[in-house]
């Protein structure tokens, strides 16, 4: 499509690249390293799932104990895989939506290099036990500082591109990516630096504000920005409503930040703060439904495309998981539901549906879409891509569903004090076994995905326009 502002303004369709030739070096480096971490950290993921079934496994090696591998799994997946993949896709999307080249490709490559230094540093720090003791903020201070520097470099590049844009209209993906950069800066500072000056409940409150918003104001906006770009792109259908997408954006920016204390419902934190957190958690349904309705309405009459469009399969099942996980979240912030599911295995089921089922699906879809375009070739194998989808989604469903059932059951048992605690542990054994095999399935899907992309990059044969 030629450089046509009028069409972009009314159709709310992501603008086409136009005549600009994008080098995309930064996007390539971010995506390649993200895929490597997806694979490597996947091994750690199934290792810790196995430890629930066979607790003696690797039991005498301090560096490989559960308590050290778990933060490595969480941080590796969140920052090594997902955020790096999201940033890589942002480096691809933003210049195209602005109709200009990335502000500085050199700065971008430096950011990618720094990001890899951070992730490799995190591996050594966490396995060595240098853990700050705060969830999602485990990395020691020097690495935290590097993260801030890398984020500023990312922000300068993205904002610099947006400031020099040729299309006046800002498509919703740009809004979400800008929001993500700004909010993340302050959310990250709160979770990793402000906590240094506090203790006890006060520190916990800051910690939960960070933990909740690491998902709500980092992965949600950048993930939705990606979905808003790739759903219309891969289905070649204009977005249903730009206005509705703006309602979703502003509702999200208002309600998400209030909800941190819902991690301590019934716990030693002020009741009024719990009530605020519950109220705003329920209000999350507004931005979520605005987004999901927009995506479903976009697909109206286009669902047949799901038959053979792998990126679209990932995207739309990600949207369904987004709806489910964001329905669960408000529901188990309610005091009555929280009394059952809080602290149980339900919670990892919920968390994995958000980060794996929704946002990783968006990222995987984006990579499947951009890889042939970045390297100007065809995807190595469409059939393998389809297999990777089915392995990841079937493994994922096995994982989520068993943990919800198991977690709910566990919660009921805990609420009957006549049942000794250890019996509630033994009861979960079959659940953990199913979770392990589901994890293996997910991992096999990841291997297929990673191999497919690497084969596309390394062994590319056909060059296409």
């Amino acid at each position, binding site marked *: 499509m030629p450089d046509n502002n009028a069409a972009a303004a009314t159709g709310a369709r992501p603008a086409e690249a136009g005549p600009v030739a994008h080098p995309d070096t930064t996007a390539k480096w971010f995506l390649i390293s993200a895929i490597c971490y997806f694979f490597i950290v996947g091994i750690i993921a199934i290792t810790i799932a196995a430890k629930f079934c066979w607790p003696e496994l690797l039991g005498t090696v301090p560096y490989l104990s559960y308590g050290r591998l*778990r933060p490595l799994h969480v941080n590796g997946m969140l920052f090594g895989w997902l955020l790096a993949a999201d940033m890589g896709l942002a480096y691809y999307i933003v210049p195209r939506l602005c109709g200009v080249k990335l502000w500085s490709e050199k700065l971008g490559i430096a950011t990618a290099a720094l990001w890899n230094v951070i992730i490799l540093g995190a591996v050594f720090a966490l396995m060595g036990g240098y853990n700050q*003791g705060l969830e999602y903020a485990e990395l020691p201070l020097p690495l935290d500082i590097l993260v801030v520097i890398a984020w500023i470099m990312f922000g300068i590049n993205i904002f610099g591109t947006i400031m020099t844009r040729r299309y006046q209209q800002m498509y919703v993906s740009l809004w979400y990516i800008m929001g993500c950069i*700004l909010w993340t800066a302050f959310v990250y500072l709160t979770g990793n630096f402000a906590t240094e000056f506090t203790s006890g409940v006060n*520190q916990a409150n800051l910690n939960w504000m960070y933990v909740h918003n690491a998902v709500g104001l980092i992965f949600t906006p950048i993930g939705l920005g990606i979905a808003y770009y790739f759903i219309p792109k891969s289905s070649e259908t204009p977005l249903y409503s730009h206005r509705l997408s703006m309602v979703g954006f502003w509702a999200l920016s208002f309600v998400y930040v209030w909800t941190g204390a819902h991690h301590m419902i019934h716990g030693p934190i*002020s009741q009024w703060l719990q009530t605020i957190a519950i109220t705003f958690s329920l209000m999350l349904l507004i931005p979520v439904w605005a987004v999901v309705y927009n995506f479903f309405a976009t697909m109206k009459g286009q669902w047949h495309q799901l038959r053979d469009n792998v990126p679209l399969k990932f995207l739309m099942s990600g949207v369904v998981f987004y709806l489910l996980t964001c329905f669960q979240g408000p529901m188990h912030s309610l005091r009555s539901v929280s009394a059952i599911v809080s602290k149980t295995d339900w919670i990892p089921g919920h968390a994995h549906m958000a980060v794996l089922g929704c946002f990783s699906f968006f990222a995987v879809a984006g990579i499947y879409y951009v890889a042939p375009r970045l390297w100007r070739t065809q995807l190595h194998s469409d059939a393998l891509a389809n297999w990777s989808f089915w392995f990841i989604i079937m493994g994922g469903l096995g994982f989520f569903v068993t943990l919800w059932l198991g977690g709910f059951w566990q919660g009921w048992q805990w609420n009957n004090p006549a049942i000794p605690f250890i019996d509630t542990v033994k009861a979960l054994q079959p659940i953990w076994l199913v979770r392990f095999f589901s994890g293996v399935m997910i991992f096999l899907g990841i291997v297929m995905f990673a191999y497919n992309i690497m084969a596309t990059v390394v062994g590319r044969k056909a060059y296409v326009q």
Partner: protein
Amino acid sequence: MFSKADNSAAWAVGGALALFFLGGLITTVVPPLVDKSWGRPAPGLKPYTEIQLKGRAIYVREGCWYCHTQQTRTLVSDTKRSGWRGVDSPISTPDEFVYDKPHMFGTKRTGPDLSRVGGKYDTQWHRTHFRNPRDLVPGSVMPPFPWIVNDPVEFPALVAYIQTLGRAKDWRPDHDYEK
């Protein structure tokens, strides 16, 4: 009406940050100013000694807090499970955690809550349990920690820390370590 704002990056930056800080400040800065109990130590709460702090650092390092919470919630079942010999435990209150840095409230209970575990099990029990939890609790999935038990400095420090948990409130009818 909003079309001008809709095309303005400055509006995006200003609006997004204003809404963020409204919610952010009210839920993080205001609460400790309103609820003084967040920062005032409970009457029975003692600061950690050097050895207890060392033990606490081990608890943080080994990630014990990924599987053990430290909060007796307001739920009846929590007070019974944290209780001892038929006496319910008091619920956890913010003033018991003033010296906890980093806080160890936790989010997941793969193992039991530890908010009132101090004084319930003696050193010998912990030595056996850390060496191989299944020797004392069949069916447990807790990892073994031989490198701590075999360390003459780390093991006593960790036990010293565990024995402090929940001691700010005097509620148990018996002396320590009585079964």
